[in-house]
């Protein structure tokens, strides 16, 4: 279980998170919604351990461990996965090599035997099929020259291979047309299980038509200002973020399909 208490964080001296509380139990799917600048991405980056973000107060416990004291790669190996809003390109490094190195780092940590090339290929090809990626993407450099949709599929592929206990999807829906969105949502839904927790960060309720959350939270100015069930997302879609009170932006209309990031 993930327990975030009074979390405050700043970047370059600017306070972004101002006392955030959130509990995510095993098997639950939580959606975090909010206008631009409310701190959604900061939350995901802080949980993953990015050092540009400074935690100034509060605590994050994950299955009894102090998450904030763990190095980035330790968090990953323990099963925390962040699907990036903007997946990073690594020229010269093949996707296959990158994925195999990551999968084996995680398996080693979990006391599982490392995959050899054949095991790995069998496994990765099956997962690629499931997310609709062609095999050629194995031999291309990590995310280099991928379209927005291909990058997001690659994130879902990595998530499936790494079998996380806690997955955070940071605006994974942005820049996707409706077909790509369905593929990504399918991939995420396949991962739902009683042991696995998911945090889905999104600006729009559209994604939640496909990934149905157990809980919905509204983030505004660094705090969770409303929590509720699935219906809260629908309410937001109808009324926009303006009615929340202190939110900065009124914006509720879903984006045009296939819009660029």
């Amino acid at each position, binding site marked *: 279980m993930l327990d975030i208490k009074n979390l405050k964080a700043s970047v370059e001296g600017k306070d972004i998170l101002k006392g955030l509380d959130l509990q995510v139990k095993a098997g639950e799917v939580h959606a975090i919604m909010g206008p631009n600048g409310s701190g959604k991405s900061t939350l995901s980056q802080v949980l*993953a*351990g*990015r*050092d*540009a*973000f*400074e*935690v100034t107060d509060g605590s994050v416990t994950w299955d009894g461990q102090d998450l*904030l*004291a*763990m*190095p*980035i*790669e330790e*968090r*990953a*190996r323990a099963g925390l*996965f*962040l699907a*990036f809003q903007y*997946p*990073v*390109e*690594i*020229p*010269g*490094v*093949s996707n*296959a*090599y*990158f994925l*195999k*190195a*990551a999968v084996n*780092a*995680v398996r080693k*940590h979990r006391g599982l035997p490392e995959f050899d*090339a054949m095991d*790995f*290929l069998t496994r990765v090809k099956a997962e690629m099929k499931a997310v609709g990626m062609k095999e050629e993407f*194995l*031999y291309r*450099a990590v995310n280099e020259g991928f379209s927005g949709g291909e990058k997001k599929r690659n994130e879902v592929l*990595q998530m499936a291979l*790494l079998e996380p206990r806690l997955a955070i999807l940071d605006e994974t829906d942005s820049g996707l047309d409706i077909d790509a969105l369905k593929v990504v949502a399918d991939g995420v839904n396949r991962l739902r299980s009683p042991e696995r927790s998911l945090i889905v960060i999104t600006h729009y309720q559209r994604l939640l038509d496909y990934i149905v959350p157990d809980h919905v939270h509204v983030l505004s100015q660094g705090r969770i200002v409303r929590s509720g069930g699935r219906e809260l997302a629908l309410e937001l879609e109808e009324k926009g973020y303006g009615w929340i009170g202190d939110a900065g932006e009124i914006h509720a209309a879903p984006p045009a399909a296939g819009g660029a990031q």
Partner: protein
Amino acid sequence: MKTATPARKIDSFLDQEYSAGFETLLEADTLPKGLSEDVIRVISAKKGEPEFLLEWRLEAYRRWLTMTPPKWAAVSFPEIDFQDIVYYSAPKKKDGPKSLDEVDPELLKTFEKLGVPLHERARLAGVAVDAVFDSVSVATTFQKELGQHGIIFCSFSEAVKTHPELVRQYLGTVVPPSDNFYAALNSAVFSDGSFVFIPKGVKCPMELSTYFRINARDTGQFERTLIIAEEGASVSYLEGCTAPMRDENQLHAAVVELIALDDAKIKYSTVQNWYPGDKDGVGGIYNFVTKRGDCRGARSHISWTQVETGSAITWKYPSVILRGDDSVGDFHSVALSNHRQQADTGTKMIHMGRNTKSTILSKGISAGHGSNTFRGLVRIAPKAEGARNYTQCDSLLIGDQCAAHTFPTIEARNPTAHVEHEATTSRIGEDQLFYAMQRGLTAEDAVSMIVNGFCREVFKELPMEFAVEAQNLLGVSLEGSIG
């Protein structure tokens, strides 16, 4: 946050110690510091050289006296006092080793620490090793087997004694003593090196390998390598270099000449790991080397592959003169400069024959306060109908205190020439490291993976065992069998 940051981890990764920095205590036969005609006469006499070679050295010396060190390279260092250098140092020996069993065990241990056990390595890998320790070649393995093919692979001094006619015919015909300041100095004082001769039609059955190591203090190492491949012959030659850690700078001014006659092929690979100095720039080797290949015959092919990770200063431009029609020249290079290292390296491709082709692939990696310069010249002579060149220069920056420069020069004097040049610069970003670490990799593994990916095209040109060594040198773990 209390966790280690990617930036800090890069620093500790870059601060790894020089692992070849041990010194071997051997009794040495060393001349006093300084250079004069008398010193040259002594060197020549100690080596029992024929008169023509002494005269050649003296002429080079007189020429050198009229020359000044080149100033155009993008490197800076205090002026070298050429009278403060020892020009000859040899491990003391009674009668000279006739076989490996007679070689000083201390010396063999040094090679083992370097990963060149003459016995095992040579036998297991099928590599013939000619090891140059300071200035005298210590042991040459596999000479007999090579001899059956008519191949000559021995120290330069030995070649002077056993095949003076070949030395006389080819020495200085690619890099004349007057070529440049350091080549002139080398010609005057060179003490040893390697000599390879592959007769007509013979494909050398094994990789030939030489390890150079600078051991004695204040020693300049001036080795001379001469490789000749006659018509239709081929050879792959590997050169590895290391030096112990020292506070003072040591000069290394070598000359390598390659000659390929009709249809001959020479592949020359270097992994250079000279001591680079400490992280504040104290000590380290000055590596001022002239390497040049002459595609003298039609359809000949000369290929340079270098991985330069060491030296305080590298000044080196392995070049090819494409004289024969349809001849081919390649240059593949990885140069890493970390801490205060300065590398000014590149190549010259001189197209003289018709339909000559050259490829230049340069990968420069700068980290810490390192400075990396690529300097290239592609010259297409008026008679070089149909000449083609493709050049690609890529720079990778690690951290924000380092520098990368690219100075390509193209002189095309024939309208049928095709010359292409591509260049890129990229940086290992904090975002790339964070991404890889979020997938469970350590910062070290992430940097290694990115650097390895960057260098892949060059590493694949290296013979297998050298490719492994090159990856290790860059702190790169071996890649899996896929990808």
